[in-house]
């Protein structure tokens, strides 16, 4: 079956919704220009295609913005890029977790891990914390449902906080 019709499913007027988020995010020093918003939407479409997912309804991006806007690890310089990465990670893990987790549960989980375990490192978020959690869900873990995804950050730390390659990278950045 041709997938052209799936493009029709993506709801329109998402650009307006993104700009609207500035009303909330500006108190944290974060705003999106129209250019930023268009780039974010374009990358959102790419991520969806890459993950073979189709979006309907409001879309996840405004929710990502509202969830992460108060993070101490996001500033105006990297705001748009961070949102783009978070979108990619979100769709990747909806697939990895086989849609067993709701949008809100995953967002809450991502935010907690981002703040308290990864300290703003998106690569670590994508490659370690969420990966471990996805394995647990595929194996049948479901306790996150009772907490809406909150309070999970300590459960899946396996002492792999230190990674040799990341150490080398950090060293290079320092020197």
């Amino acid at each position, binding site marked *: 079956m041709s997938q052209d019709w799936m493009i029709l*499913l993506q709801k329109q007027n998402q650009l307006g919704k993104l700009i609207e988020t500035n009303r909330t995010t500006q108190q944290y020093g974060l705003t999106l220009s129209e250019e930023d918003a268009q780039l974010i939407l374009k990358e959102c479409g790419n991520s969806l295609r890459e993950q073979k997912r*189709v979006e*309907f*309804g409001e879309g*996840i991006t405004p929710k990502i913005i509202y969830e992460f806007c108060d993070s101490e690890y996001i500033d105006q310089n990297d705001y748009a890029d961070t949102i783009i990465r978070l979108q990619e990670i979100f769709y990747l893990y909806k697939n990895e977790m086989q*849609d067993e987790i*709701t949008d809100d549960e995953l967002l809450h989980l991502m935010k907690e891990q981002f703040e308290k375990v990864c300290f703003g490192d998106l690569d670590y978020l994508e490659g370690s914390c969420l990966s471990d959690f996805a394995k647990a869900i595929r194996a049948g873990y479901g306790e996150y449902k009772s907490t809406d995804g909150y309070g999970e950050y300590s459960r899946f730390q396996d002492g792999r906080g230190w990674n040799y390659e990341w150490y080398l990278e950090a060293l290079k950045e320092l020197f």
Partner: protein
Amino acid sequence: MDYEMEELVPLVGKLAEKYTGHESTSITYEKAEQLMEAVIYCIREGEQSVKNPLTAAQKMPAQQAYEIGFTCVRKKAETALELYNSILSGTEMLTESEKLSESEMIQKSEIRQGFDTFENRCFYDTVVKGIPEFFKWYDPVFEPQNTILTLDYPVLKDLSAYAGIDRIYEYIRCIELEQCFLGIFPGNHVKTVLCRYDDRYRSMIENICEIVLTDTLGHMMVRKPLQEVICMEDCSRMQELLCRKDVREITALLQEMLKAFLEQYYKADGELTEYLEYSLQNLSIRLKNAAEHGSIPGIFSHMG
């Protein structure tokens, strides 16, 4: 009635929201395709149930067509379940003393039938064990097009064009008709015929009706009572008769004999006749081929 994608997509969107319980804003391509198929299946079901299809000018909105179709799907599932339960419960089985011999066949108005699997494992597994699983797992909302079962026991009618509840309903109808036909015969006649055909009939995966019908028509062709075995001499007479006919003529002969049999021992039931006739074309070809190669006995028995 054709609907454009622009008309169907909003229905898929609503179904997707329902599917995710309004807790997700995206689904996989696979799931989206499944939901689109669900929408199309229901709309088609609704269209088939309408006696006078609407013209393009009268075309109803896709949402309405979908809702009507969905109601039809649910009704069909209920009807199929009722039919299935009625077939399985049957009516009181006749005792041996009540059953008539071949010469005193039960008159068409007095036929009473009970469900019988004739100890065939495939039939039992498919019909008695399998079909209840269909009704347990069938999802008319998000996947009405899914047949779920493999329906291993073969029926005479080609159901490949059907899917979902349509296929199951047609299948149950076929089983009902088979039980009607097989219920004509007294006592252990069916099992006797099956055993003559193949003493491993309990584990075979072949249509029981076809075997019994073939045996019946064979006996009619040589004018022999059903309880007697078709011998080599009978096979020779059949070969002589069939060699002189082409496939079309043999089919016509079989149809005539089938009609006569059902009129005498069942009723002038167009539906049962039509169902059993699905096997006649194949039987004609096999008989013609067997007559030409001197292998008529193999039609009636797989043994020796």
